[in-house]
């Protein structure tokens, strides 16, 4: 394809990037076409040698998503990075999506458990307002103990969450390096 089409397609596929990053990436290809032109190479030949804009953009985006997840901790970042890594190769569906879903499921279960435990005194009081509860006071004390345990579990979950996030990012970088070659 000609230079204009190549650059337009590339720019289009790089939309997820910030404007600054996109400009930097496009600059490299602008320079490449300019030098090729100086050496007398035709636009179509240069474009053929460069390959498909979509594939090139995909490489850029995957690494971008992973490093963004690393710098800015958030659920949307890590999800995007996970799916971007997965799109690199089918094998990654097994090795990234599988563990990701499994761990996310367990983590979510523990978070729900900790919230439920913490809220148990309130649940008990609500139930008591509807109907008298046999051995109310012992139940209340037990629920307070449960709430205490729940709070501890909440704190543990926050720490575990940070730990898992960091390690998931590292695992994906590791996967990226296996697919792309070389260590990251």
């Amino acid at each position: 394809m000609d230079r204009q089409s190549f650059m337009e397609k590339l720019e289009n596929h790089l939309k997820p990037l910030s404007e600054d990053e996109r400009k930097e990436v496009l600059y490299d290809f602008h320079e490449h076409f300019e030098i090729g032109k100086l050496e007398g190479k035709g636009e179509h030949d240069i474009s053929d040698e460069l390959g498909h804009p979509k594939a090139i953009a995909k490489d850029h985006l995957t690494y971008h998503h992973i490093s963004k997840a690393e710098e800015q901790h958030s659920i949307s970042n890590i999800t995007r990075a996970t799916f971007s890594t997965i799109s690199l190769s089918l094998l990654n569906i097994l090795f990234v999506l599988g563990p990701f879903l499994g761990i996310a499921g367990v983590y979510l279960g523990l978070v729900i458990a900790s919230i439920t435990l913490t809220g148990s005194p309130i649940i008990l009081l609500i139930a008591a307002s509807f109907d008298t509860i046999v051995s109310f006071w012992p139940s209340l004390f037990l629920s307070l103990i449960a709430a205490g345990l729940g709070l501890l579990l909440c704190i543990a979950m926050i720490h575990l969450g940070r730990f898992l996030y960091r390690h998931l990012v590292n695992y994906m970088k590791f996967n990226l390096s296996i697919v792309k070659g070389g260590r990251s």
Partner: protein
Amino acid sequence: MNVQFKKGALELCVLLLISQQDQYGYELAQNISKKIQIAEGTLYPLLRRLTKEKWLTTYFAESKEGPSRKYYSITEEGERHLQSLVEEWEHFSIAVNQFIEEGTHG
């Protein structure tokens, strides 16, 4: 040539070439294409990643004919990383060659 072989060795080749001589993207693409056929465009994401990891650094240099060019240069950390890649590669290729020897003569 097998795509998987290429992917694994590309980072190594890029760092090797740049450690011997600073070069700009187009130059690097030409040098690699002489020996290995690749989609040259994928070198740029690789160069960008290697730069972000601080194994390469860049600078602009004027050129008599044409635009100023962005040169890539290897850093000290990059040299160390290259060393470990070379060692890994050497161990790996010795092992593969041994398998081939045993496979074809054993």
